[in-house]
């Protein structure tokens, strides 16, 4: 596992602005998710809502290592990745509200954020179903000699599905440029990893496909960023796919409907004590990168941005019923 001490910040040669921006992104995601939960409780958001709270360091660290030309495709717990890739909180929140101004015009909802202009190919909600799509995106990059790498995110639970194994094998056979980023948050919905996976160390699952792999502390944003840089470089250099396991933890239930009967309050509290956002903030203060006051200002700005997003979502119109038959087919013609 990669570890990071305070002195490593200097070694990473990151400017103050970059470091503070990583923090800003994490707190923005945290505020977004807290407000989404609140709006769900108020009945403004319905359906499934899978919060990224507790896992922010993985998403922000991973995306920060990517180039613009790289491709991002992820699972249904996608809010954090969307925001990290630059989707505006307004459009994201409006999607949760089922509004026309939503990022996919109210068609997809929480689990299907996407923004092709940012090479963010979306969140997918059939566990492991998007992993084969990633191999296709990787093939398109290789076929057209684009030099771009695909980053495909999924959870520990998805590694038990056939789709993962078929895609991993194909990616390795064809040496496709894909980073498979496994968020191991210890539970596939409400079932602990050790009950359902023959191998608890997800990175070992790469061995069957002769694929390079590593594990990283997913609660340490700089460690994730560094590990992703290694993984991306490996793929970009034509060495084939790479599996990176990020050890993380979600502070909230699987979705809003989760009674959390499968884990103890003590366990959750233990992980919450090491909140990745608080840890990173303290480290940056300790290292003299930024002051308490500066962080307070960033927090206040994030809160304001998300409150404005909620207001935007509330004020936005619902989709026009006359558009009900749109987007079914790309080509015209009778689409009954």
């Amino acid at each position: 596992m990669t570890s990071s001490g305070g002195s490593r910040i200097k070694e990473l040669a990151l400017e103050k602005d970059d470091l503070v921006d990583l923090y800003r992104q994490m707190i923005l995601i945290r505020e977004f998710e807290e407000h989404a939960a609140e709006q769900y409780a108020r009945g403004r958001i319905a359906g499934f809502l899978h919060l990224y709270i507790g896992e922010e360091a993985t998403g922000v660290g991973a995306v920060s290592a990517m180039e613009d030309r790289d491709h991002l495709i992820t699972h249904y717990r996608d809010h954090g990745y969307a925001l990290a890739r630059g989707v505006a909180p307004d459009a994201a929140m409006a999607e949760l509200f089922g509004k026309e101004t939503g990022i996919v015009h109210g068609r997809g909802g929480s689990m299907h954020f996407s923004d092709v202009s940012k090479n963010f190919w979306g969140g997918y909600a059939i566990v492991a179903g998007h992993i084969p799509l990633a191999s296709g995106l990787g093939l398109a990059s290789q076929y057209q000699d684009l030099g771009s790498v695909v980053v495909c995110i999924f959870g520990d639970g998805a590694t038990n599905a056939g789709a993962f194994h078929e895609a991993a094998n194909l990616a390795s056979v064809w040496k496709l440029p894909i980073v498979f980023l496994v968020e191991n948050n210890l539970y596939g919905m409400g079932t602990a990893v050790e009950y359902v996976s023959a191998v608890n160390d997800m990175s070992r699952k790469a061995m069957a496909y002769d694929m390079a792999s590593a594990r990283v502390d997913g609660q340490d944003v700089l460690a994730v960023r560094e590990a992703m840089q290694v993984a991306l470089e490996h793929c970009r250099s034509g060495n084939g796919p790479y599996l990176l396991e990020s050890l993380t933890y979600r502070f909230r239930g699987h979705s809003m409907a989760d009674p959390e009967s499968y884990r103890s309050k003590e366990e959750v509290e233990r992980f919450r004590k090491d909140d990745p956002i608080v840890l990173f903030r303290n480290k940056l203060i300790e290292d003299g990168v930024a002051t308490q006051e500066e962080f307070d200002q960033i927090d206040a700005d994030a809160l304001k941005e998300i409150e404005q997003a909620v207001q935007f979502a509330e004020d936005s119109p619902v989709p026009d019923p006359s558009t009900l038959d749109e987007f079914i087919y790309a080509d015209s013609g009778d689409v009954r």
Partner: protein
Amino acid sequence: MARELSYRDALREALHEEMDRDERVFLMGEDIGAYGGSYVVTNGFLEEYGRKRVRDTPISELGIVGAAVGAAMGGLRPIIELMTINFSLLAIDQIVNHAAKLHYMFAGTITAPVVIRTASGWGQLGPTHSQTFEGWYAHVPGLRVVMPATPRDAKGFLKTAARGNDPVVFIEHSLLYRNRGEVEEPDAGDLLLPLEGAEVRREGTDVTLVSWSRGYYLALGAAEELAKEGISAEVIDMRVLRPLDIDTVVESVKKTNHLVTVEESWRTLGVGSEIAAAVQELAFDYLDAPIARVGSRETPVPYAKNLERLIFPDRDKVVEAVKGVLARNLVSVS
């Protein structure tokens, strides 16, 4: 100018033309390269186009379809082969939950222009290799489902599918590959047939027979048989099952007042059922008798030849159904 071409060669010609035209078009599937394709459609393509564009895959139907959809998202034009439609069930999540949904759930920003070639068919292949699942795919908004009966349609549909922007489930038939029919010469210009529209292939006045793929030939054979007895049957080849061209069927029924559907799949919840339901909604007053559906027996398909022959519809069963419908002519009752 037209010449005779086999269904297989029509497909090969379409693939050649589209691959020669567009570098983004590539083939992917099990045993399509070195082996030449299990129905020999892609034989020789590996030698001609190389491994980059003719990709032998692992036995991973789910992985193949998913990779094709992803490659299509990334700007390529994959034409993939699933050895038979029975194996497509392993990939149904990719077809239904992914290929058919992308354009919609991302509000038109993502397209999945993938052509999924696969084959129905039977011939003492046993319970898991003799099935006909076009109804499963035709059920799903977002997919285009074509099932060509003729070499000309096979070529024209495949070329159009390769250039379109929607996912197309392209269902061939293992018992049709050697069928021959007229197809325009390549120098007559690109044969691009729209992926919609049924065709009246034989005109008649007493009864309408509706079918597609191999079933069309059963209907045609029955019509010729019935003609000997003075019964005039109109035969419609549906050609495309989504979008389903009901209007052509309705127009015909308004003339003949009788309808028999013919398919090789099970009747229950099948395409024939959908056509029958739509016709009674749109042309109830024109029907002089209940609509009959000819399909396969509601059992798995056995291996033994004598048993298998009892399962699938044939010309005689269609003739019998037509006579049954005409015998129940409601006009004579009123």
